[in-house]
């Protein structure tokens, strides 16, 4: 009854381009507000900068060399071992576990089932409008519809008149409403698709980032000392119609400067759009008075290169592709329990120019890893933390290769901190 609920928010391809990570250009007031009540890790790194391997790694608490998933084509329970997952462990400890949107990477790497029934109490939800993501729904300058990389849309115009992340937010709020009256604690994982490509977002968000304010990456050239093997030739975005039309030479041809700015503009606009979805979700948590009984963890599966080193997309070992946002809101630990009726996560409109600058929450500079999510979430929820894995650990169903980050949440530090701040 007193167990803390868990809301795990995983954002696809989100680098640390957020206000709470010091990026002054980005309008992300709702995530910044979450950060102001959280413990934020400034230097958190993914174990591999590509979707499925990273997600399977942090959701099983094992490194890619143990999951043996470096691509998209195997299921760890077949390829490597019957490793328990974070949601599975919560389920086995009496939680109702639910998945909305992109949590596991769809397809073979999660057995075409998001690892159901092992990980989830109910069938995972996928937004119906996702099937249009890569179709010709982007109106080009010629007035025709294309499958572009840069795809600001009029939501009323797109099939089903909605977008995947909007549907995911709506579904997640419905599930929270349902769990409000449940006697069991819940573990709800919500996976947002944006800012993963294509940059398909409500076109009004482009106004937040006028092109004249957009700069190039600080180091847009391929560094002379970069070994060719380390270079990521960003083949995926080259297949989008608008990039293909640039006729770039492979692998080192660079994108024209004005188009580089447009890509960066649309990535940032996608981030602000995603921020509004997170804002609506957290506002609902408040409205349902679940804020004082729910841990909120916020992270992404890896970053994204926005022209740094002449690269785009992920697929490398650079910091811009492996560094991720990672923060935890723990009621009564990272922030005082909200008074009755007090709202911690009131929705903030990113278009609201007066939204005041957020007071940052506590931050940790130490380097940490996404593979630490398993021991950390279980520890914060008061569950028994799985033991360290032996080497090798293919034969061990439940163990973890990451360090627990619980030591950073020590209460006395926080009390000290709060009195100081008080």
């Amino acid at each position, binding site marked *: 009854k007193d167990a803390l609920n868990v809301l795990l928010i995983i954002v696809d391809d989100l680098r640390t381009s957020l206000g709470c990570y010091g990026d002054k250009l980005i309008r992300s007031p709702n995530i910044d507000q979450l950060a102001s009540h959280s413990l934020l890790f400034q230097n958190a*790194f993914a174990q591999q900068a590509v979707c499925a391997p990273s997600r399977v790694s942090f959701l099983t608490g094992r490194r890619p060399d143990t999951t043996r998933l470096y*691509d998209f*084509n195997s299921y760890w329970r077949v390829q490597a071992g019957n490793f328990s997952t974070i949601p599975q462990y919560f389920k086995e400890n009496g939680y109702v576990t639910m998945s909305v949107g992109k949590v596991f990477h769809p397809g073979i790497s999660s057995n075409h089932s998001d690892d159901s029934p092992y990980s989830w109490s109910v069938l995972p939800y996928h937004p119906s409008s996702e099937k249009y993501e890569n179709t010709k729904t982007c109106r080009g300058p010629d007035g025709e519809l294309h499958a572009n990389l840069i795809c600001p849309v009029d939501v009323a115009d797109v099939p089903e008149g909605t977008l995947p992340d909007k549907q995911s937010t709506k579904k997640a709020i419905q599930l929270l409403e349902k769990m409000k009256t449940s006697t069991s604690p819940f573990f709800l994982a919500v996976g947002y698709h944006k800012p993963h490509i294509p940059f398909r977002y409500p076109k009004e968000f482009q106004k937040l980032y006028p092109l004249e304010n957009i700069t190039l990456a600080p*180091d847009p050239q391929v560094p002379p000392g970069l070994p060719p*093997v380390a270079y990521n030739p960003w083949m995926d975005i080259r297949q989008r119609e608008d990039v293909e039309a640039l006729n770039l030479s492979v692998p080192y041809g660079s994108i024209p400067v004005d188009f580089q700015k447009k890509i960066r503009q649309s990535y940032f606009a996608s981030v602000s759009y995603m921020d509004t979805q997170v804002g609506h979700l957290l506002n609902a948590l408040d409205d349902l008075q679940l804020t004082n009984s729910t841990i909120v963890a916020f992270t992404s599966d890896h970053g994204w290169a926005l022209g740094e080193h002449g690269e785009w997309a992920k697929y490398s070992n650079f910091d811009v592709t492996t560094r991720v946002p990672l923060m935890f809101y723990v009621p009564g630990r990272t922030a005082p329990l909200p008074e009755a009726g007090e709202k911690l996560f009131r929705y903030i409109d990113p278009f609201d120019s007066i939204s005041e600058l957020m007071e940052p929450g506590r931050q940790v500079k130490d380097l940490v890893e996404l593979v630490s999510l398993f021991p950390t979430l279980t520890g914060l929820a008061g569950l028994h933390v799985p033991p360290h894995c032996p080497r090798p650990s293919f034969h061990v169903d439940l163990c973890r290769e990451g360090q627990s980050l619980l030591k950073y949440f020590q209460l006395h530090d926080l009390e000290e901190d709060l009195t100081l701040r008080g």
Partner: protein
Amino acid sequence: NPRESIAYSQYPRPADYPQWNSDKPNLKDIRVMGYSIRTIDYRYTVWVSFNPHEFLANFSDVHAGELYFVDSDPLQDHNMYNDTRGGDLPKSWTP
């Protein structure tokens, strides 16, 4: 001590030079694995031979290396690996 905190990452490649599947090689096509060790001071990466059938990396066969110092090169544009002649692998790396 923040200096003790370490983060490991890795990335696979099908070949030493960029090609159409360099970004997302299928397991059977992986020939090189880039292992990175990060500390608050530097990022050190070795790109070593990888056998996809045995799932084995061969740290004795280094194809390339990267070494960036956070303070002097936070954007990781100046690879110092060759300047240090690759140096001996940090002890913690030798299998």
